[in-house]
């Protein structure tokens, strides 16, 4: 089956073999150039590998955009304590479905990246923390890991290099907050997935109290390409501050939803209207959320920008996880915002009062407005609750929950006012 809606304007680096059944197994993957980068990496020194990744400018694809090579360079090199790698495969940011596709079609691309990263940070045990709900994908990843062991890419003395690595697939059990890196590490240790105050950062005190690097699936999947072809080659795409390509998962009201991989200087408006085909026939887009439900809503006028980290930020939102949600004029925007807030209210781990109570407050006020029982003072109240939730908690989930509400009021006030004043909705049915 051809991957749905591949588009000639994409740069398909990580997604080249999406839809190709023969690329899933290790033989087919090797025929397509798989594990060549690993051989090359094992001939280099660990720090040399880190240096190449640093020079490539690869940034974390899990949401925060932290430079990957720099993160690796924080890991201790003295070998006094064991180092660990945790691959964050907990993908659960609403609107995001790219890691799932990477693992489903090209599990070995991720595994190769994991082995190279582990080598660079001197880890001898890596964990894939994979979302428990992804049952079909878990089976694919498990098979691929076993294949990699059988081929000698994992285990003792990998390819005769003297380097040993164990890789364990660890199943999550249903908690969005386990995607936050310190929550993930708590969960890996057999605790509730409660985030911890940073510092100490995972590179100092991570999994099992030991130095740990946490990287997203897509970040790690990019590593073999960079190691094989070099930093300059990777920098042919994107911008100075956002080199390379990135997958955008596009959903909601679009003619051709799906994953699209583009150079990071691609235009966001063209991604929405050209690659995804814009909204269904006869409808108009109203709002675009470019990076998962944790980033500010954009009006259609704002999306003529490039998709780099800095490009989207200058235009009034954030790249986040690259989960693009398009909302057209047939939807009640207030309901969509309330759905997103409901999610955070459900997923708050409850450690911080402002988050635990703020999320529920926001959801309740929004529900009241949606029902037509809103009051004029509800708008300043929402903004006030939102302001109290930002920047005061252990992890950024609290900030995220306020984002759709605050940006929604700033950019789509008329939607709120129509509900409150006239008990009507601006949606065109």
């Amino acid at each position, binding site marked *: 089956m051809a991957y749905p809606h591949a588009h000639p304007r994409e740069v398909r680096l990580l997604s080249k073999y999406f839809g190709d059944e023969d690329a899933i197994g290790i033989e087919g993957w090797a025929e397509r150039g798989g594990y060549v980068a690993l051989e090359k990496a094992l001939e280099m020194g660990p720090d040399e590998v880190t240096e190449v990744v640093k020079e490539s400018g690869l940034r974390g694809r899990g949401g925060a955009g932290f430079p990957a090579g720099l993160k690796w360079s924080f890991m201790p090199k003295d070998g006094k304590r064991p180092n660990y790698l945790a691959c964050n495969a907990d993908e659960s940011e609403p609107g995001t479905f790219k*890691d799932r596709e990477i693992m489903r079609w090209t599990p070995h691309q991720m595994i190769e990246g994991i082995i190279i990263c582990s080598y660079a940070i001197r880890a001898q045990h890596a964990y894939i923390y994979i979302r428990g*709900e992804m049952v079909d994908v*878990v089976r694919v990843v498990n098979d691929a*890991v076993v294949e990699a062991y059988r081929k000698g890419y994992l285990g003792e003395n990998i390819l005769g290099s003297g380097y040993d690595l164990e890789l*364990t697939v660890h*199943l*999550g059990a249903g908690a969005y907050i386990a995607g936050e890196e310190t929550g993930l590490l708590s969960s890996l240790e*057999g605790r509730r997935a409660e985030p911890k105050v940073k510092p100490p950062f995972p590179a100092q005190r991570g999994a099992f109290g030991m130095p740990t690097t946490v990287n997203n699936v897509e970040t790690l999947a990019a590593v073999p390409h960079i190691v094989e072809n070099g930093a300059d080659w990777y920098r042919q795409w994107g911008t100075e501050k956002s080199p390379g390509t990135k997958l955008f998962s596009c959903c909601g009201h679009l003619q051709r939803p799906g994953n699209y991989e583009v150079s990071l200087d691609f235009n966001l408006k063209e991604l929405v209207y050209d690659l995804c085909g814009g909204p269904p026939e006869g409808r108009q887009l109203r709002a675009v959320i470019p990076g998962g439900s944790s980033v500010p809503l954009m009006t259609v006028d704002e999306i003529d920008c490039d998709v780099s980290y800095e490009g989207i930020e200058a235009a009034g939102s954030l790249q986040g996880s690259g989960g693009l949600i398009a909302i057209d004029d047939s939807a009640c925007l207030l309901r969509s915002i309330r759905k997103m807030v409901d999610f955070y209210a459900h*997923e708050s781990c409850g450690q911080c009062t402002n988050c635990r109570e703020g999320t529920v407050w926001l959801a309740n006020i929004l529900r009241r407005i949606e029902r037509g029982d809103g009051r004029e003072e509800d708008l300043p109240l929402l903004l006030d609750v939102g302001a109290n939730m930002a920047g005061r908690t252990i992890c950024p989930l609290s900030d995220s929950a306020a984002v759709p509400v605050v940006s929604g009021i700033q950019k789509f006030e008329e939607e709120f006012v129509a509900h409150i004043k006239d008990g009507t909705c601006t949606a065109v049915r």
Partner: protein
Amino acid sequence: MSDGLHPAVVSAQPSQRDEKNPDAPLFEGEYQDRLEKILSRYPFKRAALLPVLNMAQQVRGWISPDTIKRVAEILELSPAYVRSVASFYTMFQLRPAGKYLIQVCTGIGCDLCGAEDVVEGLLKATGTRIGETSADGKYTVVEVECLAGCGFPTMVQINDRMYENVKAEDVEGLLKELD
């Protein structure tokens, strides 16, 4: 090895099967072997808690008070601790569910594309309300958050199988396919 599973992947076996046997023995035979493999992958016992609970759920279909006690013994934890961890995660069923646990995504991506109608269709076809098990013990329908397939709405998970692009009119066929 009585059990063919590689130690690297023992901690990641999907836990919701169609066959549920609430009184099955835990940690015996094949599962004793698995337990040892799981423990070998972590530096201390507590870290094996999620995989062990997951395996127990695979055996028995849910996490009963007895299961909590047994897991606590094996991992040298208190039952209260095990319960507090188990209750944090939505995938651990602390009550028995129907033979088919039907999880419908009502996250933002699926909601924009008609998830509500799919839920309604499923409730009607199974004669249940959200979270309730049908009188014949067959179906439990629950709403869940984003299943990471938002481009293929509506996403529905039934036990350990995923269904993409489910529309309200597909509901009847989907349920028929199960038996």
